[in-house]
C-alpha cells in the first residue's frame, strides 16, 4: 500500500509539471515532422514525373478513347482540341506540338522530339501498345485475369535486392522516439535528486519506510513514465503521421528494454556524480554521442556499411537498427538481440547504482548534504 502511495505521489508530481511532460512529448513529435518533411525529397527512391498536358485530335474511335482515358495513369493528360482551334494555334505559333490519333496510327507533331513531352508520349504509347498486346495474348491463352491488372496493386517499389527502406517519416518516427527515450535519463536524475533538493529525504529517511524501497520505487516510476511517453509518441506517429510500425504492440514491447536501460543509466549517473547538474551534463553529452552513432540525426540507408559499423557502438543504434529491420524487413532477431543486450547492461548498471546507494545511505550524507 505504501509503495502504491509512493507511486501515486510520483505520478502526481509528474503531472504537476505538465509543461515538462508536454515538452517530452512535443519535442520528438515536432522533430519527426520537421525532419520528416525536410528529408522527404532526399529520401524519395523514385522520381515523380511532371504532369504533362498535350492537345490532341482524334477520329473518336475506340482505340483513341482508350488511349486518352488510360493516359492519366502515366501523368499524361490529353486534352481534346477542335480542328479550328488547332489551325488557329498553328497559325499564330501558340501551339508547339500535338497528338493526332486514329484507330490506325498515332502521330506526334512536334519540333522538339527529344523534349520531355515527346518522351512521355513515346513511353506511354509503348506501354499502351504492350498492354494491348498483353490483353490480346491473355485473351488467346484463355487468361482473362491477366487482361487488366490493377496498377496500384500490381506494382510495388523496393530497394535493390528487394530490400525495403523507410521513408523520412518512417525513419524519424523511430530515431526520434529512441532519442527522446534517451533524454529520459535526465528525467530519472531529476526524480532522484528531487527528494534531496526539497529536503524531503530527511523525512523519508526518518520514516519506517525503507530507503532502499524509496530508491526502487522512484526507479520504477521513472521507467513507467518513460514507457508511457513512448506509447503516446508511437500512437501519435501512427495515427497522425501515418507512420507504419508493422506491429505497434511488438514495437512498444521492444522499446521497454531501452526504457529500462535509460532509467538505469540515469540512476547510475546520479549515484556516481551525486549532483543533478553534474549528472545532467554528463548524460546530455552521452546522449548526443549515442544518438549520433545510432544514426538518430542524419537519415542513413539501412544497408550503409558505415552506419552498420557505427551503430554497433551505440545502444541507441542497436535499437534503431533492430526496429528498422523488424518494421521494414520483417526480421525480429536484431531487435530481440538488442533487447537482451540492453537488459544485461541495465542489470549491471542498476546493481552498481544500488550498491553505491547503499554505501551512501550507510554514511551521514543524507543528513549532512
Amino acid at each position, binding site marked *: *500500500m*505504501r509503495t502504491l*502511495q*509512493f507511486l501515486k*505521489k510520483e505520478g*502526481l*508530481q509528474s503531472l*504537476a*509539471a505538465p509543461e515538462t511532460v508536454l515538452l517530452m512529448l512535443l519535442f520528438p513529435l515536432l522533430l519527426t515532422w520537421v525532419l520528416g518533411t525536410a528529408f522527404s525529397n532526399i529520401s524519395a527512391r523514385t522520381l515523380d514525373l511532371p504532369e504533362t498536358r498535350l492537345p490532341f485530335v482524334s477520329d473518336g474511335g475506340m482505340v483513341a478513347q482508350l488511349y486518352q482515358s488510360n493516359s492519366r495513369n502515366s501523368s499524361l493528360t490529353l486534352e481534346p482540341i477542335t480542328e479550328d482551334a488547332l489551325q488557329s494555334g498553328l497559325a499564330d505559333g501558340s501551339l508547339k506540338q500535338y497528338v493526332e490519333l486514329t484507330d490506325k496510327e498515332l502521330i506526334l507533331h512536334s519540333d522538339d522530339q527529344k523534349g520531355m513531352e515527346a518522351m512521355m508520349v513515346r513511353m506511354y504509347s509503348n506501354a499502351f501498345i504492350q498492354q494491348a498486346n498483353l490483353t490480346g495474348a491473355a485473351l488467346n491463352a484463355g487468361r482473362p485475369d491477366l487482361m487488366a491488372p490493377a496498377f496500384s496493386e500490381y506494382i510495388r517499389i523496393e530497394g535493390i535486392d528487394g530490400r525495403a527502406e523507410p521513408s523520412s517519416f518512417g525513419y524519424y518516427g523511430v530515431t526520434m522516439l529512441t532519442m527522446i527515450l534517451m533524454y529520459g535519463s535526465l528525467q530519472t536524475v531529476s526524480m532522484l535528486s528531487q527528494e534531496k533538493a*526539497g*529536503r*524531503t*529525504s*530527511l*523525512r*523519508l*529517511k*526518518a*520514516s*519506517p*519506510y*525503507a530507503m532502499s524501497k524509496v530508491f526502487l520505487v522512484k526507479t520504477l516510476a521513472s521507467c513507467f513514465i518513460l514507457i508511457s511517453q513512448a506509447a503516446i509518441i508511437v500512437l501519435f506517429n501512427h495515427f497522425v503521421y501515418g507512420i507504419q510500425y508493422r506491429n505497434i504492440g511488438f514495437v512498444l514491447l521492444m522499446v521497454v528494454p531501452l526504457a529500462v536501460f535509460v532509467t538505469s543509466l540515469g540512476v547510475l549517473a546520479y549515484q556516481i556524480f551525486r549532483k543533478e547538474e553534474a549528472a545532467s551534463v554528463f548524460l546530455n553529452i552521452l546522449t548526443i554521442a549515442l544518438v549520433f552513432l545510432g544514426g538518430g540525426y542524419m537519415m542513413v540507408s539501412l544497408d550503409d556499411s558505415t552506419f552498420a559499423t557505427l551503430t554497433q557502438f551505440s545502444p541507441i543504434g542497436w535499437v534503431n537498427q533492430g526496429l528498422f529491420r523488424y518494421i521494414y524487413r520483417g526480421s525480429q532477431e536484431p531487435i530481440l538481440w538488442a533487447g537482451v543486450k540492453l537488459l544485461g547492461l541495465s542489470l549491471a548498471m542498476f546493481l552498481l547504482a544500488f550498491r553505491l546507494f547503499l554505501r551512501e545511505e*550507510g554514511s*551521514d550524507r*543524507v*543528513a*549532512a548534504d
Partner: protein
Amino acid sequence: MLEVKKLVKRYGSKLAVSDVSFKVEKGEIYGLLGPNGAGKSSTINIITGLIRKDSGQVLIGGLDLDRELTKAKYLLGIVPQDLAIYNDLNALQNVKFFGSLYGLSGSALQKQALETLAFVGLSDKAKDKVKTFSGGMKRRLNIACGLVHRPQLLILDEPTVGIDPQSRNHIMEAILQLNREGMTILYTTHYMEEAEQLCSRIAIMDAGQIVAQGNLQELRSLIEENWYIVVKVKGTPPMEELSHVAGVEKIDLNGNALRFTCRGKHAQLRDILEVQGQHHSEILDLSIDEPNLEDVFLTLTGKRLRD
C-alpha cells in the same frame, strides 16, 4: 519516552556530540537550547536515525535504536529545521503522503490528514499548491506532515526559524495544545524565549556537550550569586564610570535602559546610584530583574546564545 545515554558523534576530527545524556519523560516538552553548531541537530539526527552515532545508546519508548530502529520510527514524528514538503503537490496530498509512510491508508488516512490540517489552521488551503503558500504557512504544513500519524514523540528542530511573529505564535500555541493532549515533545531552539515559554525541562548545549539541564528554576539557581539591576535613565549614561563599579560584570544598554549583571550582594546598587548622581543623570525607573536563560548560558559558557 526517550532516553539518550553517553551519545558521541564525530565528523572527522570534529567532535559534534560529546557524551550527551538526557531523559525525556512521557508527556513533557523537553528543550535542547544552544547556539548554532552546539550539536543539537546532530543529536536529533541520531535519535531519528538520519545519521549513525559513534557510541552511546538511544531508547525510544523502551526500544533500543540499534536493535529496533524501524519499530521505534513508528513512535516518532519529525519536523526538520528545513522545510521538507513537496511544493508541487497540494497541502492535503503532502500530509496524506507522509501519513501513508507510517502505514495509514484509506479513510483513516483521509480523516487524520484533514484533522491535522485543521489543527495547524490550513483547512481552507488543503487543495492549494504549496508553492503558493507564504513562509509561515509552509512552516505550519511542515509541522502537519510530522504530526499526521499521531506520533508518541514529536521532535521539532528549530521550527520557527525565519517566520513572522503571527505564524510563530500559532506554532507555539499548537505545540502547547499537542502537549496538553499528551504528546511528548523534544524541541530544539536557539531562542531562549521559546525555551522558557514552552519547555518543562531544558538542556543547554554548547560545543557538543550538555552544560546544564533541569527546569527553569533549577537552571536559574545555577547562577544565583548573580543578580540583575535594570535602570532607566534620561540622557546619556556615564558608561565608562559605571563599568568600573566593583562587582558589575557586564552592562547591556537597550534604548534608555541599562541592565547590570552584578556578582555579590546589594552594595553595587548603592554604588551605581552614586555614579549616576555624580553625573546628574536622571533615573526614571529602577528594578531588579530575574536571570533568564541567556544569562545562564552566558555565565556557563562565556558566550551569547546568538554568537
